[in-house]
């Protein structure tokens, strides 16, 4: 079910500003790939090019190829809406829909995309909430508003919402940066379980987190402010954190950066 992502020669622009330049990498299915690097180096931008969310930003455009198994996401005739159903996303700040109940939030993707059978909905909502380790906490108040949950619960609700549409790939943009250590731990455990089914890409500023949850790690950097961000190296997480092949990576990881 999980799919492989193969990126080659990818440039992303905001209007005329080149934000990331010439990125090529492979993201393995059923694994966790972490993106690390300083702020502004284009990790999030790159992540958003993987489900065509980059072009939602005014002026955003992309050159290059992103292969999801054997389909180019930027090929002719590709429907971005269909791409986003295959490649789900969890954002930095929990953003449940404020007008909807917990149940409706999880069901939103299926309902609003219009592809579901009514009889299956209850089962899918339960399965997704269980998948996000939230079921036991909310099963008695599924009809209460989602915004009444705590921050960590809201973020797990957003994860449940994202996995309810059964994507092949799950992109996570600093999913724990707004959460306390206990909620962070809950989400990290969850990531460990989710990688059995999904291809997971996670952007994080937390080096320990990258080391804990990921199988492979990619380090991004930029030469200077105003310069485009680049992929410095991608390798097994163990190697990146013990014996990286590029000096800049070691400097960044050991805190001798800048």
């Amino acid at each position: 079910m999980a799919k492989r992502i193969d990126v080659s020669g990818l440039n992303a622009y905001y209007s005329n500003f080149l934000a990331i330049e010439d990125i090529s990498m492979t993201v393995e299915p059923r694994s966790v790939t972490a993106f690390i690097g300083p702020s502004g180096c284009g990790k999030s931008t790159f992540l958003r090019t993987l489900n065509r969310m980059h072009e939602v930003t005014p002026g955003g455009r992309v050159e290059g190829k992103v292969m999801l198994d054997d389909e180019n996401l930027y090929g002719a005739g590709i429907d971005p809406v269909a791409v986003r159903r295959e490649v789900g996303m969890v954002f930095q700040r929990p953003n449940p829909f404020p007008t909807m109940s917990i149940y409706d939030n999880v069901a939103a993707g299926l309902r609003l995309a219009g592809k579901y059978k009514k009889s299956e909905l209850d089962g899918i909502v339960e399965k997704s909430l269980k998948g996000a380790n939230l079921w036991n906490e909310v099963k008695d108040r599924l009809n209460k508003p989602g915004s009444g949950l705590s921050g960590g619960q809201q973020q797990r609700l957003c994860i449940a919402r994202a996995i309810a549409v059964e994507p092949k790939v799950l992109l996570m943009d600093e999913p724990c940066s707004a959460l306390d250590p206990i909620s962070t731990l809950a989400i990290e455990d969850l990531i460990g379980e989710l990688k059995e089914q999904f291809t997971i890409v996670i952007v994080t500023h937390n080096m320990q987190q990258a080391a804990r949850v990921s199988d492979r790690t990619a380090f991004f950097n930029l030469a200077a402010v105003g310069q485009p961000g680049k992929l410095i190296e991608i390798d097994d997480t163990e190697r990146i954190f013990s014996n990286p092949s590029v000096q800049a990576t070691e400097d960044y990881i050991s805190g001798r950066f800048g």
Partner: protein
Amino acid sequence: MSHATVTPKSANSLHGARLPKWFPWAVAAASVALGLGISTVAGLDSSIQWALIASLLFIVGSYAVAAAVEGKRQAKDRTATSLVWVAFLMAVIPLASLIWETVKQGVKVLDGFFLTHSMGVVADQEPGGGIYHAVLGTLEQVGIAALISVPLGILTAIYLVEYGRGKLAQAVTFFVDVMTGIPSIVAGLFILSLWIIMLDMGYSGFAGSLALCILMIPIVVRSTEEMLKLVPNELREASLALGIPKWRTILKVVLPTSIGGIVNGVMLAIARITGETAPVLLLVWGTSTINANPFDGPQASLPMYIYLQYSNGSEAAYDRAWAAALTLIAFIMILNLAARGIARWKAPKTGR
């Protein structure tokens, strides 16, 4: 040991003289008394004069006493508070007195008969008659105007916020701004020359509705635009990232999140055009009999009824004008309350 010697001293330095809680009320009472006294002595008979003197005394008095007892910083703080209170009263008193006067004068002839009968055969100088024809006309004209303006306005706002980029959106924004400033008489004259003179359509409630649309659309666009802009972009992105098409995102996520504010804006726009007199005067012409068909022949409306009764000048006509004014205010107030109710009912829920 050192703590024991230091603590009382530092506690003392944080402790300053404070005026009691009733202090502002005492100053206010004293200023009012002084203001009344001065006016009586000086022979001023307008209540505005003594009120202004009292406000001035209140601000100066509370500063002076506070500066003497509490110190300069606290005195400035109190002056700011006093100014806010005086400004608040200055804004509220005229409003309250307007409502008081309208209610007092309006209840004289306002009853079931008044609301359910037209002027029909009643001569203007005689008592009797009612506003049924005017209420009917207002409801129909405003209703038609709202039916046209609300969808147009909301769709325009959605275009501007969700889709609009570049020259066209800029042009639309510019023209909406210009339309906001159009005086109602100009909107009336425009429809008069287009609809009645050029197209030769004759006076009707519908012609009035068209002019009201010109006034209402920009208000609806503006208020809806502001509400849509308040919807966090994160919600749109969350929805798009789930593979939900843009139009469904707008329909099912953006609009429900902002519906309370949008309804509120629409109600305020309706309240605003309900009181418009000029275009109605030009286009609907006015009648003293019941005309339920807004598309054919002159109709009446509440603001015009008030104007006609007032210009008639007899005692009975004055009473009718006041009662109609009271009805109009009550109608607008009910609309506003309804808007608030809907806004509260539809607001995004935060409770557990």
